[in-house]
């Protein structure tokens, strides 16, 4: 085991190497580029036995990954924002083909206006594509989650691709300490690549052909089943990872001081880390607040949300994203998860940190105190509020 100081992007590169990825097809985009530059260094210097395909666009990158995965090798790529959007139709294809590709998505805001700064609009707008989605809160988690993702995706009960999301700049370009496990330990945890089907010149067939209305729904239902299986497997794999490597993340949702909390703040990504600082400060002031970080957004952890709601009087979500014409996705899906419950907590949704607007522990404290005031009054002023919006 080696202790180093490096960026989350470089750690994603280390993870691809540790996972013995065989094909990487990628196109550069800020703030992802150093992921694949690191991999290119590894391949060039012989430290990583893989084929690096320089493609001319992200769409080609995903299609190349689909082709490579279909031949029976572990594949990896990385992108952000408009690069991810450019892959959109291929994302559907990858999941429908049931190929266990893992992709690092370095979250970046969508233009227009042009932005290079982080928010989760890019990956969250791809939530319907049938990809498993992980959201990381620190550098170590990025490394660990990529390894966990391969194990999950290549499980025969899953066979779906996964995005491992990390916020641009906040994690991607920030140097922080991390532990790199020995290759032997990784090999013990992650068996050789397995896929549900392989293109073989000796036994030729083509995949994902035309399916008539008679059977299409059933193929889609199988993807939904796979997602349900993934939901059960994530906590198991996380615990197993913890036993092998010493770090685990609470499965689908990482809870912090939620026992007996009047208010639970729900976040995703690095906000979940700063939220712990806010909770500690609020608890010191005698306020009963806890925080929970949604680590896996797809499949959505409905059951975990229901459990959190059962134990608290109010839930407030902080979305680093807005679905125009409606609200933040996390907010919507939390409410959808709770609709069927008899006893529902009060709910308030907040939009924060779009386009890289800094979200500090102080900001999160303010959101919590505002929510607590609403809880005292027994009603919510606005269903969705934008935090720190200029007049």
């Amino acid at each position: 085991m080696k202790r180093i100081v490096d960026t989350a992007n470089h750690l994603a590169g280390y993870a691809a190497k540790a996972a013995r990825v065989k094909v990487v097809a990628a196109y550069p985009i800020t703030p992802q580029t150093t992921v694949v530059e690191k991999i290119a260094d590894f391949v060039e210097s012989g430290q990583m036995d893989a084929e690096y395909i320089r493609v001319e666009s992200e769409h080609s990158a995903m299609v190349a990954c689909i082709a490579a995965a279909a031949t029976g090798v572990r594949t990896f790529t990385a992108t952000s924002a408009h690069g991810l959007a450019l892959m959109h139709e291929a994302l559907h294809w990858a999941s429908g083909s049931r190929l266990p590709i893992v992709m690092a998505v370095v979250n970046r805001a969508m233009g227009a206006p042009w932005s290079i700064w982080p928010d989760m609009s890019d990956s969250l707008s791809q939530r319907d594509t049938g990809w498993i989605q992980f959201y990381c809160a620190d550098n170590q988690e990025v490394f660990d989650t990529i390894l966990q993702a391969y194990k999950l995706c290549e499980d025969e009960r899953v066979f779906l691709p996964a995005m491992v999301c990390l916020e641009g700049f906040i994690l991607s370009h920030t140097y922080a300490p991390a532990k790199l496990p020995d290759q032997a330990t990784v090999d013990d945890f992650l068996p050789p690549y397995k896929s549900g089907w392989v293109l073989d010149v000796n036994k030729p067939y083509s995949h994902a052909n035309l399916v008539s209305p008679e059977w299409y729904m059933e193929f889609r239902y199988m993807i939904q089943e796979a997602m349900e299986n993934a939901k059960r497997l994530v906590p198991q794999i996380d615990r197993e990872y913890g036993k092998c490597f010493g770090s685990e993340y609470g499965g689908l949702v990482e809870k912090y001081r939620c026992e007996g909390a009047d208010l639970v703040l729900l976040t995703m990504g690095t906000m979940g880390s700063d939220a712990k600082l806010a909770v500690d400060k609020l608890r010191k002031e005698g306020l009963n607040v806890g925080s929970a970080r949604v680590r896996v957004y797809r499949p959505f952890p409905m059951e975990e949300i229901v459990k959190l709601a059962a134990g608290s009087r109010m839930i407030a979500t902080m979305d680093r994203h807005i679905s125009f014409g409606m609200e933040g996705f996390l907010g919507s899906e939390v409410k959808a998860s709770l609709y069927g419950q008899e006893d529902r907590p009060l709910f308030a949704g907040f939009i924060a940190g779009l386009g890289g607007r800094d979200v500090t522990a102080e900001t999160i404290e303010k959101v919590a105190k505002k929510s607590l005031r609403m809880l005292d009054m027994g009603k919510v002023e606005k269903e969705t509020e934008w935090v720190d919006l200029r007049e």
Partner: protein
Amino acid sequence: MLREIRIHGRGGQGSVTAATVLVQAAFIEGKWVQAFPYFGAERRGAPVKAFARISSEPLLVHSQVYNPDYVIVLDPYIYKVVDVTEGLKKGSVIVMNTKRKPAELGLEGWRVGTVDATGIALELNLLVAGSPVVNTSILGAFAKASGEVKLASVLQAVKETWSGGAGEKNARATELAYERLTRWWDGEG
């Protein structure tokens, strides 16, 4: 214990590298660290900022640095276009690469440490593409001015980052800056 540091420089001077080598030194001493650039478009020559955090505990904070305990200024002229004291706490220390005195730079009232890092670079012929390398030597000055990292740790971090002759030269510059730092408070200077 948490210390936050802001580094001012110009694009191409190695402000981010200064931050990463600094935290590498602190990491060697068993600290938890963060180093990151000001997140934005960078161009060679334009004013840029980089940040570092040194902590005794693992850091949960991921937001920006607003009130640094230390400011390091790599470029001798940048104070003319950038307010290097922005957000600085009272009693904080500014370490500057300059030949001048704090009063001449409009920094009276602040604790300032100065060293002619550019001069050291020219003396040792420590140049990259014709430009003097100041980002390593300034860390020697920081070690002396702040006491937050030991010189030995900085030298180790420098030699781990650059091998062979380059490592030796950078390390020498770091040592010289450590020796030549002038503290303009507590009656010195």
